[in-house]
């Protein structure tokens, strides 16, 4: 008799039902050949299995059910906005944060009725109220630049004054929305983001100037960068919330657009540190920076998402999971340059 006998009786019912793992299935079969007691028990349990049900023909769902179901789905939750290619990454990011908020702000939950003023959010900026206020503030900057109405018009002009203008605007939004519930603040954020998306029609000119403003916090000069910037920031903060609530951070469908945006900003800072950058995984690729004809002194290999987290200030040059070959000081100064772009 095999030494596994003690474990077999407990798993016999699952085995009779055919829901064991394959390796376990083989072990049970081997054991039953040797053990009359377990064979008898298996027969008793089998009497409870209505074989006719299991083997009966499967009813087929009617073809019309497909269209009906898909129609009901997009009625319950709108698909990501259909926008110009250059803004697709932002549409994906907005849909992602919205889906996450659906999960963490369930209807009827006290959290939904909690008003922002109760949140103590200025000190804990990356809880839901902090993230919403921050995105309302920073999306608002692009709205203003594009001549769209701002959700919470600010008294602080873009780039004006000392210190961190985004932080001041965020604090201002938090104060102004103090009596809003989280659900209401979510609507304020989403409506404004949606205005930005609707201002990015599918036939938009990707290289058109976004604004004449050139202050330190002025939106990027080109629409393609301005929308990638909004996507990047939304994605980074959605990741913060995902971690906070123990949810999975998604890999952006248009990660390539976020990376292209980051590399456009990074390249001018690498004139003294030419590197080959190998970003792995979907959305990745291989680049030689600062220009394709430079002679790289080092190669930095990292997952594409990991590298984006470095851009986003969620990794440091020391903590980012990157593999370096060649001249290490060059590689480290490239990583430091990427990290210095973080301002979220």
């Amino acid at each position, binding site marked *: 008799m095999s030494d596994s006998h003690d474990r077999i009786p407990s798993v016999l019912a699952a085995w*009779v*039902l055919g829901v064991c793992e394959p390796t376990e299935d083989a072990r049970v079969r081997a054991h039953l050949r040797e053990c009359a007691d377990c064979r008898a028990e298996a027969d008793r349990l089998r009497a*409870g299995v209505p074989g006719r049900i299991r083997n009966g023909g*499967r009813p087929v769902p009617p073809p019309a059910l497909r269209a009906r179901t898909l129609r009901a789905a997009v009625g319950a939750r709108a698909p990501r906005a259909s926008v110009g290619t250059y803004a697709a990454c932002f549409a994906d990011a907005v*849909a992602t944060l919205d889906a996450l908020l659906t999960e963490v702000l369930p209807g009827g939950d006290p959290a939904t009725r909690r008003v922002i003023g109760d949140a103590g959010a200025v000190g804990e900026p990356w809880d839901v109220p902090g993230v919403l206020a921050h995105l309302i503030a920073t999306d608002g900057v692009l709205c203003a630049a594009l001549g769209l109405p701002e959700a919470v018009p600010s008294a602080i002009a873009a780039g004006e004054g000392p210190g961190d203008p985004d932080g001041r605007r965020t604090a201002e939004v938090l104060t102004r929305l103090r009596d809003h519930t989280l659900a209401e603040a979510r609507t304020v954020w989403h409506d404004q983001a949606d205005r930005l998306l609707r201002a990015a029609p599918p036939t938009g000119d990707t290289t058109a100037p976004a604004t004449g403003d050139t202050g330190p916090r002025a939106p990027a000069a080109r629409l393609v960068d301005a929308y990638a910037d909004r996507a990047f920031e939304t994605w980074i903060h959605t990741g913060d919330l995902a971690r906070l609530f123990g949810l*999975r951070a998604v*890999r*952006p469908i248009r990660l390539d657009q976020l990376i292209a945006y980051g590399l456009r900003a990074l390249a001018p800072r690498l004139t003294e540190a030419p590197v080959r950058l190998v970003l792995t995984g979907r959305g990745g690729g291989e680049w030689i920076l600062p220009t394709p004809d430079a002679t790289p002194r080092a190669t930095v290999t990292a997952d594409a998402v990991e590298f984006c987290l470095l851009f986003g200030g969620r990794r440091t040059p020391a903590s980012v999971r990157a593999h370096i070959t060649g001249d290490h000081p060059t590689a480290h100064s490239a990583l430091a340059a990427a990290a210095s772009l973080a301002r979220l």
Partner: protein
Amino acid sequence: MHDRLVQGDESALAEVYDCFVGLVHSVAMRVSGNRTAAEDIVQEVFVHLWEHPYAFRPERGSLRGWLCLLAHRRAVDWVRAEHARERRVEHACRTGGGEWVASAEDSVVAADEAARVRSALARLPAAQREAIELAFYADITYREVASRLGVPEGTVKSRMRGGLRQLATLLGNPSGRGTSGEGR
């Protein structure tokens, strides 16, 4: 796939539907025994996945298993509500969508057997019933059932065992059919 659902890519939902509609419909049909109800449940399950993509946790098991579990629960809820309604209306109008129908392929005998099994399953304790039905209709391994329900594997195994023993008694064995079974 989950990434695309979260990011609102509706083509991902169409792909998931095409991949799993047969299974989800089968679970709903087997448990409810009602065509209209099964179709409604299919719609509810896929709409729920689309509307609440974060409700599905990939780290806890397959999408297939999650959809089956959801279909099963909705179907059980439907059966409960239907029984309550029938008790209220007595047996007056069984035509309003409450007709027990088996699939076109099933023989009348199989339909009788299906009804008999459903009624036996309905008499099991809820936890045993869930474990057994997920195994019958969805073919989810007991490990995945455990992971999905957040209970130890040993608990699922003993629910299956207790449930099968009771089913064997409830279904009786008048014709001797079943003891030889189709065996796995």
